[in-house]
């Protein structure tokens, strides 16, 4: 996980990296749709990567064949959610407000990878930039920006009153 303009984040110790990896895995494991997509966290020198294995159920165009744009959208939204949540000191569960995804190349029917950068983690919102690739990391197949809302104490209390 890297944070723009924060080089200290990149030089975290191997044990910290392992902990972050298992934290991300635990957060992904709590999302039923992420389990359905069989998303898994992998650790590389450059940071954490989420891997989406290819299955027939992910195909959007069986003539090419190519992965469905919505599957790439899901990979981007879910890694953004986990990245924002893992950066939050209270690990509050963020709500996705919006996402904007650009499709740069056709996504072939093969393993897909994504990494996330926090553009800004504020008190109430988080903006996460995500890139996706397949075989060659320098050839991006999609890039996306996801904005998330971190629930405030006031909103949590309002929820409690409703129950």
């Amino acid at each position: 996980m890297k944070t723009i303009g924060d080089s200290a984040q990149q030089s975290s110790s191997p044990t910290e990296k392992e902990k972050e990896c298992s934290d991300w895995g635990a957060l992904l494991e709590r999302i039923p749709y992420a389990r359905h997509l069989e998303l898994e966290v992998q650790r590389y020198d450059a940071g954490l990567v989420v891997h989406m294995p290819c299955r027939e159920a992910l195909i959007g165009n069986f003539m090419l064949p190519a992965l469905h744009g919505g599957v790439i959208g899901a990979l981007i939204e879910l890694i953004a959610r986990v990245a924002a949540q893992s950066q939050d000191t209270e690990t509050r569960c963020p709500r996705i407000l919006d996402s904007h995804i650009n499709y740069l190349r056709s996504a072939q029917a093969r393993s897909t990878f994504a990494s996330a950068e926090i553009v800004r983690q504020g008190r109430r919102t988080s903006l996460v930039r995500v890139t996706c690739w397949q075989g060659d990391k320098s050839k991006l197949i999609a890039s996306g920006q996801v904005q998330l809302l971190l629930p405030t104490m006031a909103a949590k209390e309002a929820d409690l009153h409703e129950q």
Partner: protein
Amino acid sequence: MTDSNRVQHSDAVSTAWQFTEQVPHGRDLGMQVVSVNGNQVCMRLTPESWMFAEDSSEEICTSVLYSLADSASGLAVFAEARELSPTATLDLRMDYLRPAIGDRALLAVAICRQLTDEVAFIHCDILSEGDSALLATANATFMRNTQGQQFHAGGRAKEGA
């Protein structure tokens, strides 16, 4: 418009309809095409518990709405163009206005706002069945006549334009 053209045009739309319903990811999520009227498309999805955003809630994961919007938007390009040249999503922007609860079917209503020889601009609304409140809105841009193979009813493939 001549009668033979009319038949050809409705064939293109029905082939695109058939193609949409055969897409493996669409079948995985249980997406169905409800209607194609002019340049407007309606699609439906019945939520399952594995589509939820958390184990502890019945909120549908936003990414399921995203997939439905992408599929309905893609079909709306063919509904307006009335020809089967291959298309590709250039970008899609979703705004999630309110949580989607999994006790009702999702509906996507997509409309083609502008079509040129090269691109199509689509707007799509996502709603719960039987409720007029918007759950999410999407704006997508598609590239037309991309490289690829054309789909023909019956599964025969031919090199694309």
